[in-house]
C-alpha cells in the first residue's frame, strides 16, 4: 500500500522549465509546496563536459531513464501500429530540459494569439487551413506581456529590444510585439560568420538581429557570463551561464523554505474524489509508493506526459481520464514544423565554438509579416543561422554530390569542406488539426505496465508543407547573398516526437474544445492547474519555452491571488 504523506498546499508535478518557475510565486506567497520530480539534481562539474561522444552520441546528459522508458509511439492514424522512436528528446532532472536546451527565449507575436481572427480578417475564411481546429487564444499578447517581462527578469534573458512601447529601436526584432522596456541583459555577441550573415541579410533589405536567449551575456545574480565554448546544445552549462530553472527560480524558491523537492519521484496517477476535485498525486520513489495529498495540483510535465498522465488517471468522476469528460485531452496536439537548410561556403566559416543561441535571425518571412494572398498557405518561418559545430557531426556532413561517402576522395572533400558548412534552424507557424492528436498506445507499455503516449499524425499537412518550402527558398536566397556555393534543402517532413510539442490540454474559454480555462485551470476539476506548451493553441514561428514559462508564472500568480476560492 502506498504511504500517505502529510497534506501540502500545492503539489507540482515536474520541476522543469515550467514547474521550475511556477514554484517561485507560490513559495513567495507562503504556500507549502511539494515539488515532485522524476529526475534529480545535476552537477555542472561532474555531469557537463565539452565532449560530443558524451553529450550527442551517447546522450548521457539528456537520456534520463524515466523519459526513456516511456517514449511516445507515432502512427498516421487508426488501424496502424504505433512505432516507438529510438529516444525521447526531453529529460527528467531538477531543471528538466532547460538544463540542455538552446535557451532561445522568444515572446510570441500578437498575431499568434489571434491567428484565426487575423487570417479571416486579412484573407477571408477560405484561407483557414482545411481540417484545422485553430482557435484564437483566450488572452492577448498584451495580457501576457507583463508575465513575459517577469520571466525575462526572474530567469534572466539577454537580447535587444526591437519595439519599446510601440517605437522601433532600430536594433532587435522590428516585427516583435511592443515591449515595456529593454531586456535585462544585452544580447550575446555575434561570431564572424553570424556577422557576415547579418551583412548579407542587410544587402537583401532584410532586418537581421541577435535573438533573445536565457543565457547570461554578462555576469548576473552571482553567476558568470557565457564562455561560448561550443557544447551548449544537448550538454549542460559548466559555468551555469545558461539560466535553467535549476540555477534560477528553483533555488530562489528554496530560499523561502516553502518548497520541498522530492527528486527521483515518478508520478503515476493524479487522484480525485467523487466530486471530481483533485486530491493529490501518487508517486514512486526509492521503490516505495507514496500518496501526496494536496489542496491544489499543478501538472507540469512535458506535453506528452501531461496528456498521458491525465488519460491514465481514470476514476469514477473521470472514467475517460482526468479532466477528459469532454474528450479533449490529447486533442489539438501538434509538433512544431521546422527544417534545416545547409550550405557550403568557399572558405572556412569557423563556427566550431559558440552556441545555437549565438546567431542571426530574420523575421521577414515569419507569421504574417508578408502578404500571403495567392500563396496557398498562412504563417511562415523565422530563419536562424547559428554557431556550435561538433567534429563528428561535421565529418558526417552531406557531400552535396561533390564526393562519394568514403575513401580518399571523401577524405579530401571533408578536409576542405567540414569547416565550411553552415546550418540553420527554420521554425514554422504550426496549427492543430482534427486528425492530429495524442492518445494511449494499445500495445507498448512502460515497465510499470502503463501504456505510453501515442502520436496520431494524420499525415502530411499541405499548409505547413508549402510554408516550409517557401521558407527554404528564402533561406537559400539569404545563403546565396552571403556567397554560399551549395545549398541543400531537405524535403519537408511531418514532425514525430518533438522538443517543441504543443497542445493536448489546450487553453480556451469553451470547455467543449479546451481542457483548461484562460487561467490554466481545468474546466472540470477546479483545483487542477496545467502548465507547459500543452496549453498553447498555436506555436508561433519560434521556440516555445519563454511563452510556456510566462503562462506558468501567470497560472501560479493567479492561484496565489485566488488561493481561498481555488483551494476551498
Amino acid at each position, binding site marked *: 500500500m502506498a504511504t500517505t504523506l502529510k497534506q501540502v498546499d500545492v503539489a507540482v508535478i515536474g520541476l522543469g522549465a515550467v514547474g521550475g518557475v511556477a514554484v517561485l510565486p507560490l513559495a513567495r506567497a507562503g504556500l507549502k509546496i511539494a515539488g515532485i520530480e522524476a529526475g534529480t539534481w545535476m552537477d555542472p562539474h561532474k555531469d557537463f*563536459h565539452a565532449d560530443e*561522444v558524451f553529450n550527442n552520441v*551517447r546522450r548521457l546528459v539528456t537520456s534520463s531513464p524515466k523519459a526513456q522508458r516511456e517514449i511516445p509511439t507515432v502512427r498516421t492514424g487508426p488501424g496502424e501500429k504505433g512505432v516507438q522512436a529510438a529516444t525521447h528528446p526531453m529529460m527528467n532532472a531538477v531543471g528538466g530540459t532547460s538544463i540542455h536546451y538552446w535557451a532561445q527565449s522568444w515572446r510570441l507575436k500578437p498575431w499568434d494569439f489571434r491567428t484565426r481572427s487575423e487570417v479571416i480578417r486579412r484573407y477571408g475564411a477560405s484561407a483557414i487551413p482545411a481540417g484545422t481546429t485553430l482557435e484564437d487564444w483566450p488572452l492577448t499578447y498584451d495580457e501576457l506581456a507583463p508575465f513575459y517581462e517577469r520571466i525575462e527578469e526572474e530567469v534572466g534573458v539577454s537580447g535587444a529590444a526591437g519595439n519599446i512601447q510601440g517605437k522601433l529601436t532600430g536594433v532587435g526584432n522590428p516585427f516583435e510585439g511592443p515591449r515595456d522596456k529593454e531586456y535585462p541583459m544585452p544580447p550575446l555577441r555575434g561570431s564572424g560568420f553570424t556577422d557576415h550573415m547579418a551583412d548579407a541579410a542587410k544587402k537583401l533589405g532584410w532586418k537581421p538581429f541577435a535573438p533573445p536567449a536565457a543565457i547570461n551575456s554578462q555576469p548576473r545574480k552571482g553567476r558568470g557570463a557565457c564562455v*561560448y565554448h561550443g557544447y551548449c546544445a544537448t550538454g549542460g552549462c559548466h559555468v551555469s551561464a545558461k539560466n535553467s530553472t535549476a540555477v534560477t527560480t528553483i533555488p530562489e524558491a528554496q530560499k523561502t523554505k516553502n518548497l520541498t523537492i522530492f527528486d527521483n519521484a515518478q508520478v503515476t496517477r493524479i487522484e480525485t474524489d467523487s466530486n471530481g476535485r483533485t486530491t493529490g498525486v501518487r508517486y514512486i520513489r526509492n521503490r516505495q509508493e507514496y500518496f501526496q495529498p494536496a489542496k491544489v495540483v499543478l501538472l507540469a510535465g512535458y506535453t506528452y506526459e501531461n496528456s498521458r498522465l491525465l488519460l491514465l488517471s*481514470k476514476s469514477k468522476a473521470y472514467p475517460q481520464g482526468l479532466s477528459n469528460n469532454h474528450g479533449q485531452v490529447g486533442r489539438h496536439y501538434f509538433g512544431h514544423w521546422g527544417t534545416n537548410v545547409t550550405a557550403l561556403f568557399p572558405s572556412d566559416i569557423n563556427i566550431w*565554438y559558440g552556441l545555437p543561441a549565438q546567431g542571426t535571425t530574420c523575421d521577414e518571412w515569419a507569421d504574417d509579416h508578408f502578404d500571403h494572398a495567392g500563396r496557398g498557405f498562412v504563417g511562415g518561418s523565422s530563419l536562424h543561422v547559428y554557431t556550435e559545430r561538433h567534429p563528428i557531426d561535421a565529418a558526417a556532413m552531406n557531400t552535396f554530390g561533390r564526393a*562519394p*561517402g*568514403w575513401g580518399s576522395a571523401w577524405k579530401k572533400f571533408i578536409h576542405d569542406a567540414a569547416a565550411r558548412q553552415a546550418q540553420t534552424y527554420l521554425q514554422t507557424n504550426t496549427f492543430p488539426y482534427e486528425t492530429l492528436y495524442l492518445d494511449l498506445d494499445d500495445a507498448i507499455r512502460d*515497465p510499470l505496465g502503463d501504456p505510453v503516449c501515442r502520436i496520431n499524425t494524420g499525415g502530411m499537412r499541405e499548409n505547413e508543407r508549402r510554408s516550409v518550402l517557401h521558407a527554404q527558398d528564402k533561406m537559400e536566397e539569404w545563403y546565396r547573398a552571403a556567397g554560399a556555393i551549395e545549398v541543400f534543402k531537405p524535403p519537408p517532413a511531418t514532425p514525430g516526437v518533438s522538443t517543441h510539442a504543443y497542445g493536448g490540454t489546450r487553453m480556451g474559454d469553451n470547455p467543449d474544445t479546451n481542457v483548461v480555462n484562460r487561467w490554466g485551470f481545468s474546466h472540470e476539476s477546479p483545483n487542477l492547474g496545467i502548465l507547459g506548451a500543452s496549453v498553447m493553441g498555436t506555436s508561433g514561428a519560434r521556440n516555445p519555452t519563454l511563452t510556456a514559462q510566462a503562462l506558468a508564472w501567470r497560472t501560479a500568480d493567479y492561484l496565489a491571488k485566488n488561493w481561498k476560492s481555488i483551494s476551498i
Partner: protein
Amino acid sequence: MAKGFEVDDELRFSRRDLIVAAAFVPLAALTAQAQAVPAALTPTQLKTLEAFIDRLIPTDELGPGAVASGARVYIERVLAGPNVNEKAQFLEGLEAVDAYAKRTQGGSLAELSPEKRDQILKAIDDGTAQGLPQGRAFFNRARRLTLEGMFGDPYYGGNKGFAGWDLIRYPGPRSAVEADMQRMDKAPAPFRRSAWGPQYQ
C-alpha cells in the same frame, strides 16, 4: 482533502516487481562504461574490421586514416560497452562482408589488396553486392562508428594524435572561447587536448 480520497480499483494491484524493474540507473554507472575493457572480438574479426575501415578512411597524403588514428579501438570498446546490444548484429554483418569477399574476390577481406577491397566497398555502397542483403545497413553502421572513433575525443580510444580533428581543422575543446577565436578571417590555434585531460591523446 485526504478524507475524500478514493482509490480507483485499477490502481490497487501491487506494483512492487514492476517498481524494481524501473529502478533508476545513476548517471555514474553510465559514464563508467566509457573506459570499458576492449571487446572480445576474435583476432580474425579484428583483422577483418581493420581491413574494412582502412578503406573507409585510408591513410594517404592527407594523413592518418581510420586504422592509424585508432578508430578500431573505439569500435571494439563501444561494442563491448555502451553498444553491446548491437555487437551480435554488427559482427554478423562483418562476417557476411568477409564471406562476400571470399566469394567474389577469392580471399578474406584482410588478405585482399586495397584495390580489391575498394571494389567490395563500392559494390556495397552502390547496392550491387549480390547475396549481401544486410550490406548497406552494415556499411552505414560501420561508417558511423568509424567517424565517431576518428573524430570523437581521444578519451574513447580513437582520434590518436588528434588526427581526425586536424584533418577537418576542428580546433579542440576549450573551456572558454574569446571573440577573437570566432573570426572568419583567422582560424583559432589548434588546442590539441582531450576534454578529459592531457593523458588522452
